């Protein structure tokens, strides 16, 4: 009997270990940069980790769609320093860039030093030569930082691999449902449940410092807004008035929160001062006004309203005033996410029974549909603006996908368990 229990435990544990997001490229990029990330020399006295730093860096670069890393089995040579790189060999392998490095114990025994260099195979020039120091449990995070630095040097845009994502996962049906708010690394590893409830959880939103999450929970029988520390789990009830308490959105400086409250009889947008608790009503209309989101310069609040008959995106000055309509094309435009530079607005764009992620260019007014549908929603920009994470469906199950802002690269992130939805990409955590 004991053996049976052990086996069952083993199975449970291995299932949990597999409950991560798996990634596969759906539509690649022909102009991806060929790069070889050589397995790094392990010089620590600790045992070598299962997945090496170079492996993680290669996966990150591959996922971006902008790189084509060389398979480890095709590496005919494993140079350990600048002098031992035989550039001719790498040119023959059609590799443009090469990364070499070592992992050693950091001074003081506090963790590891990842020492690495990036070379241009054609000019033989060192483009990057750095040491990234991380704690013992943070080797994956350190590898993501290395990938961020390489991505930035070669694309000119800061990397977003060392960030995190939050999402909601639901399992079960009817009265047997369980909802969980998860936080995972941007590559889907290390999923950790932040909170779980038999009642619905929705609308996760990161604080600008990446330390806290606001979300909506029905655990008290009606919607209520909570703010919870990701590290400590400590949480605070922010709003639980009559009617809807929904759509929390931290202001860019973290001092205010926009939210939807319907205590007045129908959903309106309010701004709450998180220090004083004082709230200001921003919209006044019998229609549904919801899904507020701040412009990066904090001058505007964009929101969804059906005041024109169907849901469309509007914006109103943070100081109040008359809202103006932003989206003009389509039957259904809702749940805006604004790019970090403020030039693009991603949204759920509906036509008939099909919902796709579309991006509105605020300068030209042009709308571009990025995803195939048919029930795509909850777009969330990466903090470097390069990609949009969104929720889609596969059969009757929710999954997460990411698409590049130009629509050329799409990745599917599959959670092995449950109905996954409402992704929120964290800010860059410094």
């Amino acid at each position: 009997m004991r053996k049976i229990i052990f086996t069952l435990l083993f199975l449970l544990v291995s299932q949990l270990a597999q409950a991560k997001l798996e990634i596969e490229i759906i539509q690649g990029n022909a102009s991806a940069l060929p790069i070889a990330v050589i397995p790094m020399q392990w010089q620590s006295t600790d045992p070598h980790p299962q997945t090496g730093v170079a492996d993680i860096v290669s996966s990150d670069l591959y996922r971006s769609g902008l790189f084509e890393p060389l398979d480890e089995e095709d590496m005919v040579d494993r140079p350990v320093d600048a002098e031992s790189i035989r550039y001719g060999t790498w040119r023959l392998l059609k590799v443009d860039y090469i990364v070499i490095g070592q992992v050693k114990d950091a001074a003081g025994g506090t963790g590891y030093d990842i020492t690495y260099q990036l070379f241009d195979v054609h000019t033989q020039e060192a483009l990057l030569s750095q040491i990234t120091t991380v704690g013992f449990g943070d080797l994956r995070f350190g590898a993501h930082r290395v990938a961020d630095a390489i991505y930035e040097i070669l694309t000119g845009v800061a990397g977003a691999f060392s960030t995190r994502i939050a999402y909601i996962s639901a399992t079960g049906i009817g009265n047997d449902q369980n909802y969980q708010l998860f936080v995972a690394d941007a590559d889907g590893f290390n999923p950790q449940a932040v909170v779980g409830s038999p009642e619905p959880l929705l609308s996760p939103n990161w604080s600008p410092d990446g330390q806290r999450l606001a979300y909506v929970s029905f655990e008290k029988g009606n919607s209520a807004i909570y703010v919870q520390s990701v590290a400590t789990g400590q949480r605070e009830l922010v709003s639980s008035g009559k009617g809807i308490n929904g759509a929390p959105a931290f202001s860019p400086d973290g001092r205010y929160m926009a939210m939807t409250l319907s205590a007045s009889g129908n959903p309106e947008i309010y701004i709450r001062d998180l220090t004083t608790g004082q709230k200001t009503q921003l919209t006044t209309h019998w229609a549904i006004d919801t899904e507020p989101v701040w412009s990066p310069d904090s001058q505007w609040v964009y929101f969804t309203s059906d005041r024109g008959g169907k849901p469309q995106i509007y914006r109103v000055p943070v100081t109040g005033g008359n809202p103006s309509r932003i989206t003009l094309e389509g039957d259904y435009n809702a749940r805006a996410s604004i790019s970090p530079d403020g030039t693009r607005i991603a949204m759920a764009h509906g036509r008939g029974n099909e919902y796709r992620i579309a991006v509105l260019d605020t300068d030209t007014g042009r709308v571009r549909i990025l995803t195939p549908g048919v029930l795509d929603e909850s777009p969330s920009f990466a903090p470097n603006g390069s990609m949009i994470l969104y929720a889609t469906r596969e059969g009757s199950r929710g999954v997460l996908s990411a698409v590049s802002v130009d629509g050329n690269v799409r990745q599917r992130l599959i959670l092995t368990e449950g109905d996954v939805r409402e992704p929120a990409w964290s800010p860059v955590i410094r």
Partner: protein
Amino acid sequence: MNTTWRFLLALVFAVSISACKTTEPETDTAPEVTEPEPATEVTTAAAIDPRDYTDPRNFDNSESLLSKRVIYFDFDKSEVKSEYRSIVAAHAAYVSAHGSARVTLEGHADERGTREYNLGLGERRGNAISGLLSAAGAMGSQLDTVSYGEERPVCRVSDENCWWQNRRVEIVYTAR
């Protein structure tokens, strides 16, 4: 333990898990909304009159409108369709006659469209039923509205056959 045993156990475990997963979702059937026929014969003095909407026994009498407690809506709409008005009127009659009755109107939406917008839509549907109950004599203090948006579907297939069942208001008595 040898590998064969381990494999068999793994298999049993996997099968039991997938067996749980394949449980059919509960679905509501379309409600009969026609006025029930009056009872053809009265056999006992204690017979229930299905049209006496003040009689709590009718909550479990499938011939009475009081037993119907789900109202369905069109997509992105909150107007109460005429075929459901008689059900709402029956509940209004009960609630007005029983001052201790308390009702929660749980508003729901189908999966199309965004989640927070659907929270608003579910509330609007709940309020539409609440408004009709109030207009027919229920006290405001007897009524409460909660919107679950698209978070609590009764059916999870992405087609209209499923969607119409999810676009609903459930009339839930917390006290009779």
